[in-house]
């Protein structure tokens, strides 16, 4: 059993496609979709049709989950759209290196040091709280080969 799990872990997504197809009409708001080849969160979704007896078309407004850029698309509801595999996992922050890399620990104890401190307010808070000796959880967003810390959460004693 153990080696099967290991294999699974190793090949988790290297061989697999970054997206899978889904019929446009089955998408939902707050779900994910690829728009202009970028993984997006659907923030608006509406249907319309051309002419009274026409077929449904889906109008999607999405926000790039990494860059925050807004994209729009309209497509016949019968078409398949690519939906990105999106993973959001929480890691325990164990250290911040001098060159701005985070040392993160997964639930199973695995360590990784390949992600940078996020920029802006979140990064600043992360450093401040870490310096204050607080227990910090980082949410790592992973999709389409990109990976980044998108949220930090200070754990209080009560949470555990």
């Amino acid at each position, binding site marked *: 059993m153990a080696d099967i*799990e290991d294999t*699974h872990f190793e090949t988790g997504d290297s061989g697999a496609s970054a997206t*899978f197809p*889904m*019929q*446009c*009409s*089955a998408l*939902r708001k*707050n*779900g994910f979709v690829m728009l202009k080849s970028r993984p997006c*969160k659907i*923030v608006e979704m*509406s*249907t*319309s*049709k*051309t*002419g*009274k*007896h*026409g*077929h*449904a078309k889906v109008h999607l407004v999405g*926000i790039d*989950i990494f860059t*925050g850029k807004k994209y729009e698309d309209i497509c*016949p*509801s*019968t078409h398949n759209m690519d*939906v990105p*595999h999106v*993973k*959001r*996992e*929480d890691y325990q922050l164990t250290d911040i290196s001098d060159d701005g890399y985070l040392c993160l620990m997964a639930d199973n104890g695995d360590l990784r040091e390949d992600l940078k401190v*996020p*920029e*802006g*307010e*979140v990064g600043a*808070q992360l450093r401040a709280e870490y310096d204050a000796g607080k227990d910090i959880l980082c*949410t790592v967003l992973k999709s389409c080969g990109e990976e980044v*810390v*998108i*949220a*930090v*959460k*200070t*754990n*209080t004693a*009560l*949470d555990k």
Partner: protein
Amino acid sequence: MLAPQLLPLMFQVYWKVRNQDSLSHHMLTCLVQLASLNGGVMNSSETRVQYLVSYMENFLKLLSMIGTNFKNKEALGISNVVRKLQLFFGHSFSKLPQALHESYLNEITRITCCFAEGAELEEAQLLDDKLYVEAFDNMLEAWTNIFQENASGNDTFVLQAATRIFNTYLKCHLAPPDGSRIRNDEVEEIEDNEDNDRIKFKDQLQIIGMCGRIVPSHSLPILYRLLEDRSNKLKAHLQTMQSQTMTLSDSAALDNLFEDIHWIILIAGHVLCMDSEGEMPMIPSEIMQYSIEKYNKSETNLDATLKVLAGVRQVVFELDFVDQCDHAVRVFSDVLKLCALESSAAEVKLGHFMSPEVGCTLMWFLKRWCLSYLLPTENYYQEVSPTLIGALGRDTDGATFVINFVLGKMQTNIIHFSSEPVLLQDTVDLFADIVCVKQKSTYIVKTEGLWNLVKLQSELKAGSLPQNVRRGLYKGFVLAGSALNDPQASNEYYQQILKPVQSRFKNLLCQENFNRIYQEEGIKNEVIDILECFIGIAKGSQMSTAQILFEYIAPILSELPVFLNIYKNYQVIVQLVLELFGRCAQHMLCYLSVLDSKRLYESSLATVQVYAKCNANRLSTEIFSEESSFQDLLLVLEFLTLILSKDCLDFSPQVSNSEITITAADVSLFGLSFILPLIKMELLMYPSLCSQYYKLIVLIDDLYADKIANLPDDMLTQLLRSVELGLTAGFGSDIVQACLDFLQGLATHIYRNSLQNTKVYQAVMPFLKLLMNLTLSHEISSEMMTSASICIYALICCYSEQYQILVQSLIQSQNDPLVAERLATAFSQLTNNVLLNCERQPKLKFRDNFDKFIANVHGFLLVK
């Protein structure tokens, strides 16, 4: 006013100024006013009739002079005249000389038809100013009165009028050569949230339906002939399309055909059935009578009717026996044939040529028809038609056939039109609405069609249907089961429907490696799908079934806190979990026993707690994170508000109060305490969240002021801070009103229970000064003043000493001694002779005093 020269003069003046836009409008308004002349001047019924005769003569003269050449706004004015005449003189019409009355009916029929045509033209040209549409609506309103006055319906003129109006309306909506519909070549983009025809033209269609029912021997044959003709054409089209590619002109012809079919079905649906919101849907008496007459004259018989019904799948229209088929059933059979045609087109991969709009209209018609005609309850009718009862009554093969057909059509829609969200929504609505009626669902649960549908949908892959379809289906399944009175049958039924969903959930969660694979898309889709099913189950819950359904849902609910923790990073799932609790609180809680309610409270509180824990102290880089929190919190607040309804409305078996250890308000407040820290100022800027929040706290305060008074310090402070914010932050008058209500309730509670020297007493105190300042400085708008004064009164009762100090300091702060003196007088008048005991009488007196006080003080404080 009643001088015989007046009316002729007015009409003559109008005719003279008719071509001058600036005058004609005012003159026409005058005529409209005269058409509603009423009151003391009409002292006897003779006077009324005399006046009406005179008005009518002049009016008819005017109409004949106008002919069909209405000036631009004239149609509207004329239609208003007719509407007013009908409204104010309706009862006097029968006393008119026969000839005059007849020519009046003749003329207004003529102009109604004329306006109908004008209206159609306006619709086709997409004009913004819809004068003819409005004029036509006015005329129809007048006709409703005329038809109702003539309920016996033997007046030949009324029959003729109904026929003419029906014909004209139909013609306006059919393409040439049968009709005069104007083709709109502009292909426009139509948003799905726009109203469709059956909503947009609901009022019109209802009255046209009434016209059709007045003359069923005219309207029904026209309708079935048209339907059969158009269906034949559609069939021919489809046959050609199978062998040839479609040209542009084919496509235009097809669109035209669809539009015809769409309108014929809409009109047929309104002729055959009446709107039955909130009432038991019935077969209209005119149709029933007509069917009986036809049967008695041996023009129709049951055998032929059944044969036609049974043959709908063949989609053949030229049958020998079809003329002996009951006319209402014949229209219905034609619609079923269209359904069959649509399904068979989809099966041979021509579904993309069919119109989803027509599909929706078909679903709408089936719903309406089934509600009224399928399995009618015989003893609701004085007389029943042997053909209708024989074909569709209880224990007939016809009824079973129709149920299976309709359920089969739903299946085809789900399989072949899964990409049409609106059509599928109408499909599941049809289902849920039919099974709502117990007389029908008793039969539906026994049919093969239902179990086929259950099986079909269970085989569909998670995530292959548009949102809401799965929940709509489960709502229907669950509702259908409520017809089973026998507990054992009911248990078996729900076992078959619900056990599989429950097992799906358990199997999913019990997978050994669930912790590792939970993020895989297939698993997430499965989770979403299962939650959708449970939301549907909760939505379909009724008094008789809540208990048994809860047995299936409760084990799932108890897993949800853990589950939410796992899926905290996936908003779609988080929101579905929150929504599921909301739906349980909304549709089940009021029927649940004390014990079950407690189980629901526990699971839901644990879930809210997990939600709060996961989101407290969290900072995200995502630009949509605020919007996300807003959506989530709105769901939580809605849920906490819905929970409270248990304390207002409780149908659970009676128990003594001592058994209730935990009330809904405790749950709401406890839940609120978790999420209060998450409700940030910027989130309150979302109006829906803001109003939901204040609605909740006012509701708790109304029901259980004592619970608010006994809150822990932290939470009380936070709550009161939000009330202060609500009063000052400019969220709008509704919110100010809510905050005033909240304070008034709490202050009254403090006073009545003598809570001096408590924390809440201290905490509420600053609001007296705040409110005085806000009212004096105009920051509370004048329409809120009454509520504000009542609130201030309650506060003064609690804090009379502090009030005196406040008054003194206000007076002393005035620089001008004159102003100070006037202010002092005003204050002393305010509370003069007002008892400070929080009772109704003095409160009202204070309110009146306060009005005067504010008017007075605002006067001189502002002048300064």
